[in-house]
């Protein structure tokens, strides 16, 4: 018997069998990978481990003892810490308060503020996380928030730590911090469950691996020796994927989008770039490089304090996203929880929200075409759901991301498609299909901008890469100049050797 044992775990949601009869074990001092397609049941398993959800059947044992948690609190008290896929932070509280929430150092109910800061400061320092702990979380970027979330793992002395896609919005530099943290925890004899869609990471970090498919155990590798990536992909997706990027050269046409010395409150240095019809332009940079800020300015999501934007030679006076959309610019934002999904509404509505104006007559919906659009994209993007009427909040993280992508892919008259971290949390199988869709759109003459923190991704699918650093565009490379070192060098603010960071 292993230190941590899942046995016969089964969980059903209305219309969905999320997990059925899943059993496996993990040893002390091991990092155990958990992989599977979107909606395979990974997060559900983690939530059951954390006491947030309750299994319909089966049990979890730690050190031979059956664990039965009434709440997440019980789980902590039993030494189980979970970093959830969706960020769980309180925006109005500071970093230190967020990290102490639920266990403030206090006497007689009065918080010992000094002690809290000392504790948190020490922990952050030892983990190598460099964030001002007095800042309110609402002022942090997504990436920084993710680091705060990760810091929760070390705040308590845990026996079992589960991380659900912790790197999905981290760039390689921050990921490295996480990896060394995990190595340290492994050395301390903790059990670590690591959920990710990034094969590289899993092979670099994990000692053993479990693959879930459709809620069932598809494979269990007690050791990764001799296991190949293709094998794991096949176990996950049920088929071989030869080349995930599937890049094919295209001819690019005239200049579609021209961004000229655009600046805003959060992007002081004016930025200029252009994108041609049929071209896929990548934006790479580290967290806080300002890529998302720049794209939000182009889309009119934030107030632009200077500069002009032209689409096909016509100046776009976009001050609001709906103007930009009418001018043919769309942006699929990086923060899917805050800026993407519309909670409480169905998948169908989430897909159609923008494109429905093309089908409606005098403001009255065209139901038939809405249903068709929804069904088409659910199928195309392989959204795992019992029905298009399902509330989007009930979908797995990756499936939510697919629905949001579907929203923008279904929009008509798009000339410039900007996708910010488009494949965040999306499984390998679906990734290659999304890339294929992007190629098709580009071939149809769209200009596509891909913002990504995953270097292989930008290198794999883009015709040209712009690197940002410290709020300015620091380098531009065309496809035959692509080289990891050069790109990373341009992305790094200080002139450290890029080898130390390359993955």
């Amino acid at each position, binding site marked *: 018997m292993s230190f941590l044992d899942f046995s016969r775990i089964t969980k059903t949601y*209305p219309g969905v069998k999320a997990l059925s009869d899943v059993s496996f074990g993990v040893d002390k001092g091991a990092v155990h990978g958990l992989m599977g397609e979107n909606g395979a049941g990974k997060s559900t398993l983690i939530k059951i481990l954390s006491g947030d959800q309750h299994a319909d059947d089966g049990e979890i044992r730690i050190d031979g003892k059956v664990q039965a948690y009434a709440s997440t609190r019980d789980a902590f008290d039993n030494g189980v810490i979970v970093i959830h896929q969706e960020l769980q932070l309180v925006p109005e509280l500071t970093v230190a308060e967020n990290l102490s929430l639920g266990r403030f150092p206090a006497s007689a109910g009065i918080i010992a503020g000094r002690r809290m800061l000392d504790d948190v400061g020490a922990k952050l320092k030892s983990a190598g996380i460099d964030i001002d702990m007095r800042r309110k979380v609402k002022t942090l970027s997504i990436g920084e928030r993710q680091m705060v979330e990760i810091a929760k793992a070390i705040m308590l002395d845990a026996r079992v730590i589960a991380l659900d896609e912790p790197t999905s919005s981290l760039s390689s530099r921050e990921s490295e911090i996480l990896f060394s943290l995990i190595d340290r925890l492994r050395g301390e004899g903790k059990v670590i469950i690591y959920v990710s869609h990034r094969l590289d990471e899993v092979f670099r970090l994990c000692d053993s691996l479990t693959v879930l498919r459709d809620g069932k155990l598809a494979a269990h590798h007690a050791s990764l020796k001799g296991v190949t990536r293709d094998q794991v992909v096949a176990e996950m997706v049920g088929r071989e994927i030869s080349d995930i990027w599937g890049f094919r050269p295209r001819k690019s046409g005239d200049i579609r989008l021209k961004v000229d010395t655009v600046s805003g409150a959060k992007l002081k240095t004016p930025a200029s770039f252009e994108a041609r019809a049929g071209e896929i332009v990548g934006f790479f940079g580290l967290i806080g490089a300002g890529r998302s800020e720049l794209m939000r300015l182009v*889309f009119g*999501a934030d107030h632009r304090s200077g500069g002009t934007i032209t689409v096909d030679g016509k100046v776009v006076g976009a001050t*609001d*996203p*709906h103007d930009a*959309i*009418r001018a043919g610019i*769309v*942006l699929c*934002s990086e923060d899917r929880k*805050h*800026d*993407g*999904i*519309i*909670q*409480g*509404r169905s998948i169908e*509505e989430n897909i*159609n*929200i*923008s494109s*429905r*104006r093309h089908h*409606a007559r005098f*403001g*009255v*919906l065209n*139901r038939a075409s809405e249903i068709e659009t929804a069904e088409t994209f659910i199928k195309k993007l392989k959204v795992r759901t019992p029905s298009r009427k399902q509330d989007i909040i009930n979908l797995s993280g990756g499936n939510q991301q697919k629905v949001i992508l579907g*929203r923008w892919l279904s929009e008509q008259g798009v000339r410039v498609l900007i996708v910010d971290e488009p494949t965040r949390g999306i499984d390998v199988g679906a990734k290659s299909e999304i890339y294929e869709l992007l190629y098709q759109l580009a071939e149809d003459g769209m200009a596509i901008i891909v913002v990504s923190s995953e270097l292989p991704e930008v290198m794999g699918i883009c015709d040209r890469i712009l690197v940002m650093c410290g709020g300015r565009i620091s380098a531009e490379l065309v496809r035959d100049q692509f080289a990891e070192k050069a790109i990373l060098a341009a992305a790094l603010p200080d002139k450290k050797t890029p080898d130390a960071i390359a993955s």
Partner: protein
Amino acid sequence: MTHRLKKLLLGEQGLVVIFIVAFALVSALVPNFLTDRNMLGLLQSVVTVGIVACTMMFCLAARDFDLSVGSIVAFAGMVAVMASNYTGSILLGLLAAIACGAFVGFINGVVIAKFRINALITTLATMQIVRGLALIASDGRAVGINSPDFYQLALSKLLGIPTPIWILALLFGIFGFVLNRTVFGKNTLAIGGNPEASRLAGVNVDRTRIWIFALQGVVCGIAGILLASRITSGQPNAAVGLELSVISACVLGGVSLAGGRATMSGVIVGVLIMGIAENAMNLLNIPAFYQYIVRGVILLLAVLLDNLRSSALGRR
């Protein structure tokens, strides 16, 4: 059999089913309840609340709040009467009332959407200002209607059913359609679900919110006209506290104050539950002070039942 029943109860329309059962119970237990006359009286008594609830549903669904409805209803009623008296034309009076309602609603909307002032405070302010205007315009007194034709708005009947009830039914129909089958309705729900995401999805959030408040104003204007016709005068003190009744009817009908969730059938049920409670209490001759308690308990029971239903749904 039990399976189908369960499905029905736990489905979308479960609230309606519960309501029908409760209605049957009241009919059986309360003497004189299920008579034609009482039914018409009951429906007439919910006309004001029902009409205003149509648009309050939109307002709440978009995560907004409107406290000014009672004042607008009173003000519009005053305007209808005074303008009719002044111009000698009832039609002009009605138009003036609706225009005034729309104007106040529009101002609410602009202040809330454009200046980003909290909806509670804004509408609390317009609630006071508009009530003040109504009082000033009439010097605090009821204004009589010159032309008896004005009464006919409320008294006239079609197929034996008074006009106000038809209007209420019509508005229920229209706004039910608008909510579910139009871009406006869907945008409203989306804004309530996640305002920022809706904005980034190209919804013109400000314009939609302004429209919602303006529509609310129009609908309050209609309610004010019918009320004035019904009480045959414009009264500056009418409809005090209406906002709370309307909001509770909506929430009772499953509209979420956190936005993004609303159904017309739910709101209709909410409005009717409140009306039936009042009606049955009076039929049963429950003393005034005890009515407070009964009213409170019914409110609680109604939501509790619905909660039990939907948590059973979750656990199914």
